[in-house]
């Protein structure tokens, strides 16, 4: 039987792990909240500041769960509704006008939702199975069924699984660890 452990929820400027509030901020905007969380949790990972908001959200949630442990056999399966639209919209703004046409590679690279998975993999050196799905709502059963397949086939021993949804100031992360 698959077990679900270490659940992290992030919404309304609050980070909760296994129902305990780990960090809370009065920040009005996600980017401020994320910066404050980063500082308060002493994450020490300068690349964090280059990430787009979706990646920051996914990163923060996964940091709470993965910590500094060995996750070389932990797969990553995440999903959301808005894909990378938050960054897509910002990138599009940089190319809307022919007179002010300055596409940014640093923004463009984040116009794919799976980049957040890549950021987590890089941070924790997880050369493991990973997947990103876009669904119209959080389908925990689907994600768990998919993760269970990965575990049963022996491709991983654990799966970092969950929902990382963000569009502008509307965001929610619900991420957890699945083990056999």
């Amino acid at each position, binding site marked *: 039987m698959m077990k679900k452990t270490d659940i992290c929820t992030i919404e309304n400027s609050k980070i909760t792990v296994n129902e305990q509030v780990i960090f809370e901020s009065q920040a009005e905007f996600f980017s401020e909240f994320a910066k404050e969380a980063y500082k308060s949790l002493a994450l020490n990972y300068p690349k964090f500041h280059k990430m787009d908001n979706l990646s920051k959200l996914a990163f923060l949630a996964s940091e709470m769960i993965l910590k500094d442990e060995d996750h070389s056999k932990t797969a*990553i399966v995440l999903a959301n*509704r*808005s*894909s990378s*639209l938050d960054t*897509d*919209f910002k*990138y*599009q703004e940089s*190319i*809307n006008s*022919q007179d002010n*046409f300055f*596409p*940014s*590679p640093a923004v*463009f*690279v984040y*116009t*794919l*939702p*799976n*980049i957040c*998975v*890549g*950021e987590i*993999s*890089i941070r*924790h*050196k*997880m*050369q*493991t*199975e*990973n*997947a*990103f*799905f*876009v*669904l*119209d709502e959080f*389908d925990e059963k*689907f994600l768990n*069924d*998919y993760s*269970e*397949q*990965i575990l049963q*086939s022996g*491709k991983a021993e654990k799966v970092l699984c969950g929902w990382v949804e963000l*569009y502008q100031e509307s965001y929610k992360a619900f991420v957890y660890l699945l083990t056999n």
Partner: protein
Amino acid sequence: MRKEVYITDYNCVTPLGFDVASNWNDLLQGKSGVTKHKVIENQDAFYASIIDSGKLEEEFNRFFDSAQKSKIRRLANDNTNFTRLEKMFLLSLKPLVERHNITDETAFILSTTKGNISLLKNQATLPEGVYLSSLAQKIADFFGFKTKPIVVSNACVSGIMAIAVAKNMIQAGRYKDAFVVAGDEISEFVISGFNSFQAIGSEPCKPYDKNRSGINIGEATAAGFITSHCEERSEAISNEKFSFKILGDSAINDANHISGPSRTGDGLYASIKNAMTEANVSAEQINFISAHGTATIYNDEMEAIAFNRMELQNVPLNSMKGFYGHCLGASGLLESIISMESALHNNLISSKNFEEMGVSQPLNILKENQPAIIKYILKTASGFGGCNAAIVLEKC
């Protein structure tokens, strides 16, 4: 005992044609979909593989007429507006839906990187159509799919992953069969982005070649029907013209950099190793590799390293990017289909535009079409975010 899962039907819509047969004929003759185009106003013309929009309209309108006469279920509203990409998706799925039933145990899996992204231009808010799940639902509703669409959006490995997801979810017992469709469309959004990465070549792309200078962007849609093999399905199986067993799959991240591949090919090597282990197939048994070969300096070099680490350097290999450009979310499925066609015709297609070896490790790159008996196919892909994917197919 794990269920065995097969691809038993497929179709594609590309600049080389609106069905597989037309594509195959052109490929055999070495005809490429890549030509010079001017897509963005203030920017130079460049090489890309683009579907003729006039022909697409014509083909789609014909389809819409015949759909009324066929058994395909439709939305009540005849006047639904479809975007250009949606028309491409509908056209590629149509023959498969006509030939195979949709039940409430049938999955609908859509692979795309950007979907209807061109709808974003000059918008102050997000139009509904840019949500990938809305795009998928619209296509699903047209044909009357009963299950919730699953969208795979994993950069350029999405097309291969869609096949893998179908196989894994069928083996999990969640579905009995699946329709998989993959697609991406040329857009100013994507072209400007790749340009900012200096990734677009100024000439028709030359995968693995000494003088390669970057990608050509392409667009296409491709569709496949995937089913499990058990007694109740034997009627469906006996109607097949062909079947390819999906023996193994894996998608491992490099954990190195979000835009550059691992210099030692770690993620691709691991994906291939895992897929072949699951398939119980050795390097000597692989008859053909359909590689990713985008014609960037780093990607092609990384692949050469990964293939050598797996001792696959002698296996006949090609990249299809010289024919189709890089079709992003469509590429993995489209190129798998062409691989299967190659196996059915006992004929491998050349790796177009390859002339002189330009990677540091040996590969057996097809310089011309080659007759061959193919039983085991390895298909690979890599993409932004450090992702990689590999599947092993067996011709049955």
